[in-house]
């Protein structure tokens, strides 16, 4: 954005939301649907005032930006969305925050995997969680305790297959173990 006088700069709120739908939702369809709901409910003038933008959307969770005084209007217009791309859907507002960082950290779960919905569990005493990804001997683990990755800026705990089996006679230090 072009620089603007700090006193005139508008304040913003970031709305974290979740889309519940019967199938896969595409980002473009969602944006079109929100735009349509917005102009239908408030008209062009109202739409210009609440300045809604879709910041990100990953297929389930997403982030919207709006003017800080009009978040309740945005809640109402998101509630009027009843289908996306011809498929029944509903948008659930998870929370509203003043910055992208805070909204993401507070309201968007960092791992979509629930601990109990993945069958591949790892339990090593101090470290426990569910396996997100396996590449060769490298294992990414989504920890049950989110504090485990605090301070490192990562989402997952990095492990190897050696951690799981203890000593391994094939161990030669390369990542794929060959």
């Amino acid at each position, binding site marked *: 954005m072009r620089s603007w006088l700090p006193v005139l700069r508008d304040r913003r709120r970031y709305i974290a939301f979740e889309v519940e739908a019967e199938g896969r939702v595409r980002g473009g369809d969602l944006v079109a649907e929100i735009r349509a709901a917005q102009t*239908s*409910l408030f008209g062009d003038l109202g739409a210009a005032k609440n300045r809604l933008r879709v910041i990100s959307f990953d297929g389930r969770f997403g982030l919207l930006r709006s003017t800080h005084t009009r978040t309740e209007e945005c*809640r*109402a217009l998101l*509630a009027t969305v*009843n289908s996306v791309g011809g498929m029944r*859907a*509903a948008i*659930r*507002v998870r929370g509203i925050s003043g910055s992208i960082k805070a909204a993401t950290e507070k309201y968007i779960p960092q791992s979509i995997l629930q601990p109990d919905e993945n069958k591949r569990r790892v339990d090593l005493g101090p470290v426990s969680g569910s396996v997100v990804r396996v590449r060769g001997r490298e294992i990414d683990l989504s920890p049950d305790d989110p504090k485990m990755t605090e301070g490192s800026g990562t989402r997952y705990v990095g492990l190897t297959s050696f951690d799981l089996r203890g000593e391994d006679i094939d161990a030669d230090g390369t990542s794929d173990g060959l």
Partner: protein
Amino acid sequence: MRPFEPNLHSLPEGSASASRLALAAKRLGYAGIIITNHTTTCGRPIGVEAARLVAGIEVVIGAEIVASDQRSLHSKAASLRERVDFLAVHGGDEKINRAACEDPNVDLLAHPHQGRAGIGVAAAKAAQENQVAMALDLSPMILLRGPARIRWMETVRRDLDLFGKFDIPLMITTGGRSHLDLRSPRELTAMAALLGLDRDRAFEAFSLPESILALNRRRWTSVGVELV
């Protein structure tokens, strides 16, 4: 505030089972749901026992009376009153709206604004006297667009003024038939605010169903006499 969703329809009438509705409502922050299937469809909702297993949310079975005239409405209400905890009436027709307001057995007049009919002054007075709650059914706001929604909004805005004037109890609902129809209390409050309903009245409307249920569950032997 312990919000309740007072007018849902589950399988076989809606497309979601009672337990699915309960689970979705719990995630949206409701303390309870009332399932009011229409009396014309095949009776009791399926899977009520399963819905009771969902922890942290109360599932109440009520009924929504469908009547073609005043007389059958009163007789159905009198016979169902003993059997269910919560009694709603399928509104929308002007005569039925009026008759429901005049019947003290009725707890809730569901979607009185379907079609062009609203609530007249006479019906509003009767509703106040008999303590019949009006449903602010927001599903047209979610599902309709354009001229149809404009007409609906006009009627509802006018009637909300009338309800305020006569101090008629109000309940907010989506009349949902699937878990995708449900909206959280905060979202419904925001939508109702656009129709001119302030926050305090909206909060009151959300907690009203629970107090009505508590009243209905006491064992009344006749008007004002309770079996202790």
